[in-house]
């Protein structure tokens, strides 16, 4: 009974989170196109219709998927056949795997057991996240190299240099968070953000680590190859960068990997810096506002509010990705490198130093 129950719960969790991520990916492709159109005073996709309904072009991702499925699966003559086919998998798999450690909500009691709303509550959560997301660069480099074509190669090279540079500042930018919450386990970090800072502010990562948040956000955009750091696929110079030679479903796998990156990145951002599933001032039994006012909320509503707050935060950051993409122009390559090594890295180190100093002073002060 018990092993069966555990297996069922695990499979259900994986299914639900998978569906969440892929559903969001599908929606994000639509949001990207429609958002871009509205920002640029256009109408955007509005033609695909089912039963006479267009619903603002929401069926376009479906049409895209069908189109990708029925296109010829083309492999260029001079491509390295094995690596060419491996590359999309290398791009997609790590992107999906990163979702495993993101907590969607607090543990729920169900059938006499505490069930974590998280596929794997690893005690090395953050390290796993970085180890796996570091692997995405292989997909890009393999795609660039195996295509045996100059633009993908340049795109792959740019991407690898950029991702490796920003991985450094990204890793260092969250060290401050780890020091404040004294854990690398994402569920612990999310739980730690439920406390109050000075009795007023929720102790969210963004309030205790504003600089860390900025650095992490910037590095995240660079890691996800999104504008203003989308040089690897800079279409004005490199056609489409590392996936120039890809067609049909392999191309759509790269596309999906990009959007999964975006979704998972937003979820991680929400978890680390915006309290994850924490709703401001919401405890296990109800709201407790500063000033002694408290409102009782039933347990199921607390649960829903928390899940909803996580989803809302994730959606906001997904939208921020799109919003920034259609606002900020692309950097020049030397500017990207200069920002990465000469600005982000020293600032990340400074952030760690200051955080350590403050924590030390608080400890000495006996607070």
């Amino acid at each position, binding site marked *: 009974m018990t092993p069966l129950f555990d297996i069922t719960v695990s499979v259900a969790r994986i299914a639900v989170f998978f569906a969440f991520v892929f559903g969001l990916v599908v929606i994000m492709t639509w949001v990207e196109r429609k*958002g871009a159109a*509205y*920002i*640029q*005073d*256009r*109408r955007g996709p509005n033609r695909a219709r089912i039963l006479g309904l267009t619903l603002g072009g929401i069926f376009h991702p479906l049409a895209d998927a069908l189109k990708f499925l029925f296109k010829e699966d083309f492999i260029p003559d001079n491509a390295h056949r094995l690596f060419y086919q491996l590359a999309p998998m290398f791009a997609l798999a790590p992107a999906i795997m990163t979702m495993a450690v993101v907590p969607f909500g607090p543990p729920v009691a169900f059938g006499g057991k505490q069930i974590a709303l998280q596929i794997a509550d690893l005690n090395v959560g953050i390290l796993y996240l970085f180890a796996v997301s570091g692997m995405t660069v292989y997909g890009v480099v393999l795609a660039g190299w195996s295509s045996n074509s100059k633009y993908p190669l340049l795109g792959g090279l740019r991407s690898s240099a950029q991702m490796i540079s920003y991985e450094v500042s990204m890793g260092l930018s969250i060290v401050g968070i780890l020091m404040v919450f004294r854990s690398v386990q994402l569920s612990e970090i999310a739980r730690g953000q439920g406390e109050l800072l000075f009795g007023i502010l929720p102790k969210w990562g963004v309030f205790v680590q504003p600089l860390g948040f*900025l650095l992490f956000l910037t590095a995240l955009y660079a890691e996800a190859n999104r504008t203003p750091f989308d040089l690897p696929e800079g279409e004005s110079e490199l056609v489409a960068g590392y996936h120039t030679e890809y067609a049909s479903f392999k191309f759509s796998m790269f596309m999906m990997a990009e959007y999964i990156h975006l979704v998972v990145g937003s979820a991680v951002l929400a978890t680390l810096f915006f309290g994850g599933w924490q709703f401001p001032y919401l405890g296990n039994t109800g709201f407790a506002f500063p000033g002694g006012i408290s409102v009782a909320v039933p347990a199921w509503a607390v649960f829903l509010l928390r899940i909803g707050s996580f989803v809302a935060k994730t959606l906001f950051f997904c939208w921020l990705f799109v*919003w*920034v993409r*259609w*606002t*900020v122009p692309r950097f020049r390559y030397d500017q990207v490198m200069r920002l990465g090594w000469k600005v982000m890295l020293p600032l990340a180190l400074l952030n760690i130093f200051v955080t350590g100093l403050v924590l030390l002073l608080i400890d000495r002060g006996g607070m």
Partner: protein
Amino acid sequence: MTIGVKKVARPPEMSFGESLYLLEILKGLAVTMGHFLHNVAHNKDIPTIEYPEVRRVMPSRFRGCHRLMKRQNGAPRCVACYMCATACPAVCITIVAGESPDPKVEKYPVRFDIDMLRCVFCGQCVEACPVDAIRMDTGWFTPPEDTREKLIYTIDRLLEK
């Protein structure tokens, strides 16, 4: 000012706030969000014309697709004089003349084809026509077709418009 040297003002040095870049990004985000919200709220203000359903109204002197005029009895007004075919710089008009059954009219076009793939819409044929039989006042440009054959407009099609 002797040789017209123009002094171009150099861009001013960036202030500290501007060189931080973040504030400027926030301003940019505000601009794009303004456009986004305006377009969501005032969907009708978007200048896009939904082409196949909604058509732009062309100015009255726009030289569009050709049409052939008819006489009152429905016969083509064209007298197959070849003036338009001669005037055409793109050589896109093919006329085959035949003897008209109407005793008052000498000739009529058995075939009158305009190759729309060659036509440059110069309007010389309209200028050349002595009987005002060909006009370009349909107010619309050539619609796309699947095959080249369909873009060679025959006399029936030209008379329809």
